[in-house]
């Protein structure tokens, strides 16, 4: 198949890639740009493991053609932290034990990050709805929901918010 050269804006950097018209964004991210944080679990848009941001909105990169990403701003899990400095959401996932096997974590973080940008203090029902497209087989979701609710909003009554509280001090 004929290859096309395009420039993608990934995590704030321009990246020139040579793609086929049927390459998915996930394939280009993982295979060409070595951004393997985004995962393929189902390959059919059911599980959310490949969720990335396109112009700030969470999208499934396994169902998005790389061509569609041209001219948009793409952010992947690798673009969340500022160098070694984690976002409140990432730290909250660690502190609340929201990560078990970690395979769904990147997609889960991207969905939750988009939610928090929209609504910094979402209630539990809103969080559950925002994460309904991300399947986690390990956690039963309880700690993920808690981590999202407490990200940037540490609670005094939560034993697992201590680390965030300390950072704020």
């Amino acid at each position, binding site marked *: 198949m004929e290859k096309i050269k395009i420039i993608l804006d990934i995590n704030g950097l321009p990246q020139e890639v040579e793609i086929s018209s049927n390459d998915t964004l996930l394939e280009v991210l993982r295979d060409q740009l070595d951004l393997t944080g985004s995962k393929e679990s189902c390959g059919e848009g059911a599980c959310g493991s490949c969720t990335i941001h396109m112009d700030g909105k969470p999208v499934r990169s396994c169902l998005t053609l790389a061509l569609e990403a041209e001219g948009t701003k793409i952010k992947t899990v690798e673009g969340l932290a500022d160098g070694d400095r*984690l976002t409140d959401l990432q730290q909250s996932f660690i502190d609340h034990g929201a*990560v078990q096997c970690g395979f769904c974590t990147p997609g889960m973080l991207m969905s939750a990050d988009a939610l928090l940008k929209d609504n910094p203090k979402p209630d539990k029902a809103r969080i*559950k709805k925002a994460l309904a497209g991300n399947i986690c*087989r390990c956690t*039963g979701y309880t700690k993920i929901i808690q981590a999202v609710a407490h990200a940037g909003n540490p609670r005094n009554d939560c034993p697992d918010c201590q*680390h965030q509280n300390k950072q704020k001090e």
Partner: protein
Amino acid sequence: MSEYSLIGKRMPRVDSRAKVMGKAKFTADLKLPGLLVGKVKRSPYAHARILSIDTSKAASLPGVKAVVTGDDTEGIKWGVFGYTRDQQFIQTEKVRYIGDEVAGVAAVDEETALKALDLIQVEYEELPAVYEPMEAMASETERIHEDFPNNINIHVNIDTGNVDENFEKAYYIREDTFTAPEESYFQAEPYTVVANFDHEDCLEVWCPNGGPHMKSKPLSNAFKIPLHKVKIKKISIGGAFGGRSEICPADYICALLAKKTNKPVRIQFTREENTIGTRQGHAMITTHKTGVDKEGRVLARETTCYMDGGAYSSTGPIATSVPFLSMEQVYRMDSVRYNGYRIYTNKPIRGMIRTHGRGFAAGLDTQLDMIADHLGIDPIEIRLRNVRKPGEYTSTKSLVGSCAMDETIHTAVKRSGWKEKYGQLPPFHGIGIGTNSVQTGFPMGIRGGSQSFIKFNEDGEAFVMSGVVDNGQGNDNMLVQIAAEELGLLPEDIHLVSADTETTSSDPGSYSQVSTFVGGQAVQIAAKKCRKKLFDVAAKILKVEPETLNAENRMIFVKDNPEKSVSIKKAVRVSLLNFTSVNAEGGYWPKVDMKREWVKNPYGQMCEAFSFGTTIVEVKVDPETGQVEVLNATACQDVGKALNPLVLEGQFEGSVAMGGQGGMLTEYHDWKDGRCLNSTMLDYKLPLACDMPDIHCDIVESIEPKGPYGAKEAGMSIAMSAAQAYAGAVCNAIGVYMDSFPLTPDKIIAAIKEKQSCSEK
């Protein structure tokens, strides 16, 4: 104040930082120079004889680097036990299920590899196939495996004696049959393997596994190369739940392709392949006949279970036994007879799964509720009269040490408000309880023990080496936590080298719930030896007796006078200057009855500890749609000692999701002529965030004397009891005792309608 600095604390996991940054590498993320794409050619028939395989067209396709068939193999058959070796990694004579491996290809890219698969021409002679265990046993057509009459793969018979006599003494006897179809693991990570032969002709393999040493041995057998030539490497693993314990034929096919091409090869399963080409949970038909006295105490029980094992043995003898074992551990029975049959069918292979025997267990507790109902006894009371007490022996003669079964029931009853709710909820609301017990390990012969090595660096930090693997449950953190606790270091001072067959010693693997008990204990023993060496040096420096010392926060200090101290770094350096290493090894082997064997002799000490769990669930059923809304769940387990409550709660919550929410409400496979109709995530209904109830976790600590810090199995008693509690709650809500699981809306509506029509009559 706690006597420990880290044990018992809510410690965030050491592996989670890399995971939230997208840095953690899983097998599919690996890139090696010259990496080829491997694919497996699978059988389209459920049962057929292979007449010929022509690979010439595929091999000559540009971009194809190798094609392998059974002719390229040493012809060795795989089986977990000597008497279950029935599976070739690539079939040569027959295929036995839709998906059975017949060939493999390696090519420069996926597109070429897929084209090559289509060009492999296999001529088959189709044979009559059997898809259900009862049908398979009665079948007079060609057996699936020649040596197994009636397609019976495994028969486990346990009889404690006096069963018939005790049935005669019983005041009330019930016999009920319960069924549940197959379920699947649906690990987040689809199965992927990368294989490479290095410059010394050593086979390197990266893949999800439930124990690296359980992968290296069959590969060494299959290639007829020594164990030291097989290096299973550590890599992040995206979940296992029992489904990644054994060798996978793709491991071998990938390695064979790597050998033939002299290049690294990756085989990455599609989601459909992950479902049909790895393992599944067994479908089961279970009949429990239970005789009780007037007070509801079980005098006699006879259980017969037919398990659909699929095409090959897998962990058959274990799988046929475990549902019974969980029953005999949690419930006392004066006498019991068990006949478990694992039947070959022309369906994918079945192995162990986290809630292995969901229909068996949920049936048992449903029947207990029926008996309680008949006798006018409260469901809690009948359980309290029958559950295990510490110091007793199970029916098959395992001594039960620590056991706080009663306490888990009392705690869960109180937390859930059972007494205020049971029998007093509005129509179509219900509450149910499940109680279960899981073994901390199986007798595993020479693979039963784990060994650890610890070596100190001159900067006072340490390497900890252990064969324990982390499938996602937090084993890496557990090992670091134990080592840091014993050595007086901070978690960041420990570098863990684990789950690698080149650098770590044999270990039973993580699939028998034994990682903390055996592997963690080995690290604890090694760390204690290192600490003793450090204390001997520090005692000389501080001019005190070693017994007066303690270590914490990188310092060794006098307990009564913490100011008097020396850094661990200094102690290490002084030791080295005095010609003494600060390394140590530790090993732990559980004292089980080595004569116990799953089929030939299923009696004797099974393992050193058992966990006990209670789950209570409250539900609301919509009688129009049959939909179940779960209002809340209470999970309470006796874990011996909670090493890390943060991680433990995660296990409880995940167990409720898989065992209860998915296992009892939505998860099952649909079939047509041996073909799985719902193998993908769109079709198989996994619990989502919006489905889950609030879960209350209560931890009970009985302090197991043989476990590290008192710990034993943690989490699986919840997965099993959650299945039972979900079933109980739905039955309670609709006023019908259900015998077919999971409890999907169609079954619920049918049961409600039937009840209504009966009451109208």
